[in-house]
């Protein structure tokens, strides 16, 4: 009698029900949030045309299509070739969006015409975007994934690998390194207030505030206040950082909708630590005001976009609550130190890679003892 009914029941181990959140859904939510940020950047930057006639908004839009499209195609192809590699279309699409959003574009007023400081523009930019996408997808996402686990943020690592040796111009570093010539102040000293355009001792010729206005303001227009530039609209730097407000709104919306599945603790602890350290440095160096340094450290595109959408990448960050806070604070400390003392104004990217590598160590830290221990 035990054989009379055909045995077609599915037997899975307990539990037999699951929550509604899946990896795909997490990636879809993330995609929508970053896409919203990209759209805001595209619209803002459509007001800018490069010396060679490329519309910057169009550059962003095309760059987005290239990065997302290439990432999805590569993901599909690798899935065909390597049987043990999952096809994660949404994850690839999110990666593509991050590549374009952490790419540096724009024509700062202050350097137009100076041969040393011309950033990459279309169509050369498309070549770099494609190269970063390919290397990031293949090396840092897929090969690392098959080998075990992603060690570093793929977009950050690929950008670093591609751009650092080939051209300094795509990172703000080039103008900054030649401080003397361009009279850009260093952060490792007192920074003056925005109205103060007179040379201030040995620390650069212009105040840091007017540097920010010249660097991030809309070319050809009267620069707005440092506050409005840093918070609302920058026209140079990371694509994803064009509007800090857009990043903050999209990021918070993502954290609220995907509650507990996104590592918002990293973002919060990072931003809090950045704020505290900026204020401390402002006091220590005797800045003319407390806000300029703070605004730069918090809202530079590399800082704000990275805080919400790159530093929270699940695969390359700690899984524990305490670990995430340590990660966020560590990232902030490194970022500030790099930007202040190494003069590398995109320091969060390098800091992120260093912190990513420390994750296995951070994951070992346990403060919450198991129940009854």
């Amino acid at each position, binding site marked *: 009698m035990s054989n009379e009914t055909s045995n077609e*029941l*599915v037997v899975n181990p*307990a539990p037999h*029900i699951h929550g509604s*959140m*899946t990896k795909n859904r997490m990636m879809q939510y993330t995609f929508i949030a970053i896409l919203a940020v990209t759209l805001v950047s595209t619209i803002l930057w459509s007001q800018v045309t490069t010396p060679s006639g490329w519309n910057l908004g169009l550059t962003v839009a095309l760059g987005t299509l290239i990065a997302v499209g290439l990432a999805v195609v590569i993901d599909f192809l690798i899935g065909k070739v390597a049987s043990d590699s999952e096809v994660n279309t949404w994850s690839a699409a999110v990666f593509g969006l991050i590549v374009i959003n952490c790419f540096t574009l724009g024509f700062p007023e202050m350097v137009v015409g100076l041969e040393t400081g011309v950033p990459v523009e279309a169509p050369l930019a498309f070549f770099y975007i494609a190269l970063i996408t390919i290397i990031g997808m293949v090396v840092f996402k897929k090969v690392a994934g098959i080998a075990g686990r992603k060690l570093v943020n793929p977009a950050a690592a690929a950008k670093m690998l591609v751009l650092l040796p080939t051209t300094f111009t795509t990172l703000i570093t080039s103008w900054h390194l030649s401080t003397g010539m361009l009279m850009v102040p260093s952060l490792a000293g007192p920074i003056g207030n925005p109205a103060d355009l007179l040379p201030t001792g040995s620390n650069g010729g212009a105040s840091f505030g007017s540097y920010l206005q010249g660097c991030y303001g809309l070319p050809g227009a009267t620069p707005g206040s440092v506050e409005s530039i840093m918070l609302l609209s920058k026209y140079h730097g990371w694509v994803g950082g064009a509007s800090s407000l857009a990043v903050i709104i999209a990021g918070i919306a993502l954290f609220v909708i995907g509650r507990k599945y996104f590592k918002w603790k990293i973002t919060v602890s990072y931003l809090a630590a950045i704020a505290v350290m900026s204020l401390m440095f402002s006091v220590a160096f005797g800045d003319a005001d407390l806000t300029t340094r703070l605004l730069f450290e918090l809202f530079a595109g590399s800082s704000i976009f990275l805080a919400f959408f790159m530093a929270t990448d699940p695969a390359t960050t700690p899984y524990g609550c305490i670990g995430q806070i340590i990660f966020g604070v560590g990232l902030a400390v490194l970022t500030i130190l790099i930007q202040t003392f190494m003069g590398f104004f995109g320091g969060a990217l390098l800091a992120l890679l260093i912190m990513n590598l420390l994750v296995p160590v951070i994951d070992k830290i*346990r403060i919450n003892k*198991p129940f009854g*221990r």
Partner: protein
Amino acid sequence: MANFVHIPEVKELARKTPIEIFPDPKIAVVLTNQQSGATNTPTIKIGDTVVIGEKIADAKERVSAPMHSPISGTVIKIENAYNSCFETPTEAIYIENDGKKTKGKPLTSITEAELASTKNEDLLKIIREAGIIGLGGAGFPTSVKLAVPADKKIQTLLVNGAEGEPYDTADERIMIERTANLVRGVRVVRKLLGNPAVIVVTKESKTEAVPKLQEAFSKEPNTEVRATHLTYQQGDAAMMQKAILGYETPSGKRSYEMGTIVQNVATINAIANAVFDGEPLISRVTTLNGDVPKPKNLQVKIGTPIKDILSANNVNLSTLDSVVVGGVLMGTALQTPNAPLTKRTSSIICFAKNKTKNVQQTTACIHCGRCVSACPVRLQPIAIYNAVTKGDFAKAEKLCAQDCIVCGTCSYVCPARLPLAYNVKMAKQ
């Protein structure tokens, strides 16, 4: 700091459905072993005639509980059948119903007035002889659990009426319909434990049961009915002690060492039936729920094939993907619908085809850490999972895998659908 994952109850329909007596099976398949502890052997032979309540399997060891015939009839065969308690075939006694419903001699029982003067060892003997085991799912012999060493003073008896598993409403209906019997049962347990304080713990969502319990227990001394907000995870004995009494039982310690006994309501109901009415445990209330035409609470004879229950309730097996017994979070997916109902079958939940398939796909971990923040006992399920998949059981032990309460919350929340709970359970064993 408690930050438990909320899991939807899905009890709306079933909780309003009164307990229905399910007809006796034509052939009862009584699994010889349904308890944890020593192994029973049949005390009857093929061809023997048995009557309702007659003992048909037992063991000599202390940690054991006998089995009784749920029907009257003839033993037609003794052979292995799939046992959902252990997820493997074990010995079963097949009894063909003669339809006469001949009752055997009831067990020794006492009147309520005799309770105070009855010796504990005699009460424990009744409970053992009735074959009572933990009906909440653990299956540990109740007579052993309630025989607390004399030097351990029990301060609190927690009557567990949380019934945290989604879909399950059998305990809730017992609390609604058999409240007076529960009061009798609690008196027995209390007497055995040296008259501790009693807290009847249930969830505020059980709106029909709460006033019934409050009324029935209002005249009992030193007794409180606590209807509170409890999540699924807090139905676990250790979690409940933390929620109600505030302490965490140290790892490796038993709850009686903390002065507390947690006893499930269905078990207390069975204790009352045995002690005062001489009824052995030959039936239990189980919930039929999920993708079924009409959710029900049924009083079913132990040994009734699940497929009989399904067909009598118009559940078409061919439309089902899986049938889960004993709770959708901690229970077992049946390998065959021929499986008989056991003492531990608190519910039978059906899942229709094409409903669960997509979400069951296991993918790679993305390291989101949700399982870590969701674990009610603060383990790191993904770290244990990784250790287990590498075969590194020493590391799993270092990560306290043995402290897992197997609640399944980690797997429930995992966006990659990794079988975390299953692997941790493997490590535990």
